[in-house]
């Protein structure tokens, strides 16, 4: 196996559902060993999401979640009941041989297990311990329950999502989960550089709520500078026009087009075969185009409506105008550009078989990441973790399985 950037790094991963698992996915493909510590007593609910259609939801059990497999590819799973003292004791043994801890519970949970940072640093002083509570670890709402896809309502993003003058629309993904994961991965790796130089570990925290608000920076600045509370803009831009999404030939086919300067507008009018638009008073300058964009959009749609999104993109890109189809999942999987970059992977999984997953999160020239297999079965790596890493005799492991500590 080629060298990878994070070879030799070990993570004790208590995280579940989405935000923590996204984070450790970034690390695992770059060579870190991720030991997911889970239990029959608290099944990661994503283990049951998006199973193969050919198997009924009631027969899928905990090992056929397609989404789990995608998010946990190449990670290891061991099972421990953390409500049992012996389970906590074994967890501490895993922590002693780990570099990083990731958890995304509300603040009370790790404390209740007796595994909060103050306890852990006593047994592993240079541990890098990342907590990812949805609401933070202080303040009146710190114990509130986070559910990424709904917590996005608090962040400002849901309020801004939708069509001009329409109601807010729930963003289709739990936007904060991956965003928060990116902040978390950045922090862990920066803290590892600090540990390399000083030998010191530390406690880190990211907050899902503010992770999304932080990426609305200029919109929040508009409020703090000008007392303006922005609202939905659909596909429009605050100054560019045309800037939108247009219906194309075919069923539910769309293309996005953005035209900036006057020069681009000239090129655009020629490219779409309507040089006469350049003469029209209503589109004569950028302000007129912006003010009359509804009329402009109707005209553009008459042109795009006769072409496929690919044809529109080809014509406009050749002229130097930013355009791109609005791709479906299926179109992305068959997209020649992504194919030429080798984006897609199809890791094998013992219960699901081969399934296509989104590829590497980033590409490093000297140490490219790798994706080998799907997510682990529940407790699949118990023998490796307890036998090989902790060097426990087989009889003891069997006994603890029977006692439902390893469970």
């Amino acid at each position: 196996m080629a060298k990878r950037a994070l070879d030799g790094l070990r993570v004790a991963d208590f995280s579940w559902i989405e935000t923590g698992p996204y984070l450790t996915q970034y690390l695992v493909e770059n060579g870190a060993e991720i030991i997911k510590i889970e239990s029959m007593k608290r099944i990661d609910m994503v283990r049951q999401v998006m199973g193969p259609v050919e198997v009924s939801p009631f027969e899928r059990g905990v090992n056929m979640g397609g989404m789990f497999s995608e998010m946990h590819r190449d990670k290891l799973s061991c099972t421990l009941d953390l409500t049992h003292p012996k389970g906590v004791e074994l967890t501490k043994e895993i922590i002693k041989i780990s570099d990083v801890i990731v958890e995304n519970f509300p603040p009370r949970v790790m404390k209740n297990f007796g595994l909060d940072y103050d306890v852990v640093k006593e047994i592993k002083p240079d541990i890098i311990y990342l907590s990812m509570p949805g609401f933070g670890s202080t303040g009146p709402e710190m114990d509130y329950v986070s559910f990424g896809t709904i917590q996005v309502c608090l962040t400002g993003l849901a309020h801004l999502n939708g069509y001009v003058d329409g109601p807010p629309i729930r963003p289709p993904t739990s936007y904060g989960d991956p965003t928060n994961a990116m902040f978390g991965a950045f922090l862990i790796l920066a803290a590892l550089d600090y540990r390399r130089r000083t030998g010191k570990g530390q406690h880190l925290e990211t907050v899902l709520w503010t992770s999304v608000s932080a990426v609305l920076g200029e919109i929040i600045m508009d409020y703090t500078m000008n007392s303006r509370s922005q609202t939905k803009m659909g596909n429009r831009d605050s100054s560019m026009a045309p800037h939108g999404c247009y219906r194309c030939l075919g069923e539910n086919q769309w293309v996005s087009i953005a035209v900036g300067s006057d020069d681009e507008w000239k090129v655009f009018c020629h490219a779409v075969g309507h040089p006469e638009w350049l003469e029209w008073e209503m589109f004569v300058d950028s302000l007129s185009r912006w003010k009359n964009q509804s009329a402009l959009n109707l005209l553009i749609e008459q042109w795009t409506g006769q072409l496929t999104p690919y044809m529109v993109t080809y014509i406009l890109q050749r002229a130097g105008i930013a355009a791109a189809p609005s791709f479906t999942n299926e179109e992305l999987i068959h997209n020649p550009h992504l194919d030429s970059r080798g984006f897609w992977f199809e890791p094998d999984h013992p219960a699901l078989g081969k399934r296509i997953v989104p590829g590497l999160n980033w590409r490093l020239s000297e140490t490219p990441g790798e994706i080998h297999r799907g997510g682990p079965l529940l407790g699949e790596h118990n023998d490796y973790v307890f036998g090989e890493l902790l060097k426990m005799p087989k009889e003891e492991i069997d006994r603890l399985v029977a006692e439902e500590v390893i469970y």
Partner: protein
Amino acid sequence: MAEQALEGLKVIEYGNLIAGPYCTKTMAALGAEVIKIEPPEGDEARRMGPFLNDVPHHERSGLFLYMNVNKLGVTLNLRTRAGMKIFHELIKDADIFVENNTPQVANELGIDYPSLKEINPKLIMTSITPYGQTGLYRNYKAHDLNLIHSGGFAYINGDPDNEPVKPGGQQAGYVSALKAAAATMCALYYRGQTGIGQHVDISMQEVVISITEGTIGMWSCGRSIRRREGSQFPGIPFISLYPCKDGYIGAAAATPPQWKGFLEMLGNPDWLSDPNYESIAYRMFQYNDLMAHEPKLKDWLAQRNKLDIYHTAQSKHVPYCPVLDIEELVNHPQLDALGFFLDIEHPETGKLKYPGWPFTLDETPWVVSRSAPLLGQHNVEIYCDRLGYSKQDLRILRETGAI
């Protein structure tokens, strides 16, 4: 001042708008020295709003101010020989170089990785581009809008009978910046172990695909095209946004304890009395039957205020959340308790409130050391004090358009 996590790290940025600048801003927050190189006319963000009091001014763009906190700023024209020479002097001494130009422009300018590696073999260079360094679309032009669409996010966002729609703000730029920041730290970790630098290739389209959450899985597990469903969560009843008396509320009850809390909140209505509903799989199975009752839930919510619903639901561990607008967000007591917003003084705007960081580090806290640089603010400090050019040299460089 406490030590900082990235103290001593030298970062050069030749970035524009969001993707490059927000990436290096994260490093500057942890104590890295970030020298932002702008062309003589400045980063485009300077010409983009929002502007203080809506008056366009290149030192008063909220976007630029937010993106460039903690950085040193110099002007440099990479299209001149003298400019390129100075650039090489800066790169020679740098740990990290971040840029977000298209591969074509980077090659034209001579700031491609093979060229810079010759000058500094240990350099980590991070390039954030619309479609990546390779592939058929590598030179395609794109704005944020196009990448949200070409990354498959827009297609699943919005109403079924309306067009695919982008979310608010410039999300492709931000999430790509964050992926790039993590990737750069990953390369730094490897360099710390081995001394070897490398090139980090971030495709914004690929980053957008990575945040479409299960959308690819819907095709690879079910061969189904994921479509727009408005606010409704695919396949699970009562996860959606609903109107209430004074706005909108985000609704969800997923786990069995959450479901119990939800029933309690509604006063255990008859229409939800089937104990099997506690299982999310069963609720998905009974989707149509349950959704026939949705008007009853909507009625209940429509009679109440969003904050009352929020606090009542949360007291029963049900993860309901109100839709907050920007004003409500900025004034929310929880964010106040977290200290999310902070005041930063700037010579051209005075003191303004900025969003801070969504994270804490207990041993090496993040800092705000300076506001965004004025255009060319640190030319003298960097070129004269650091690189040894005289004031006379600087005058000539300025008059010949190199800085």
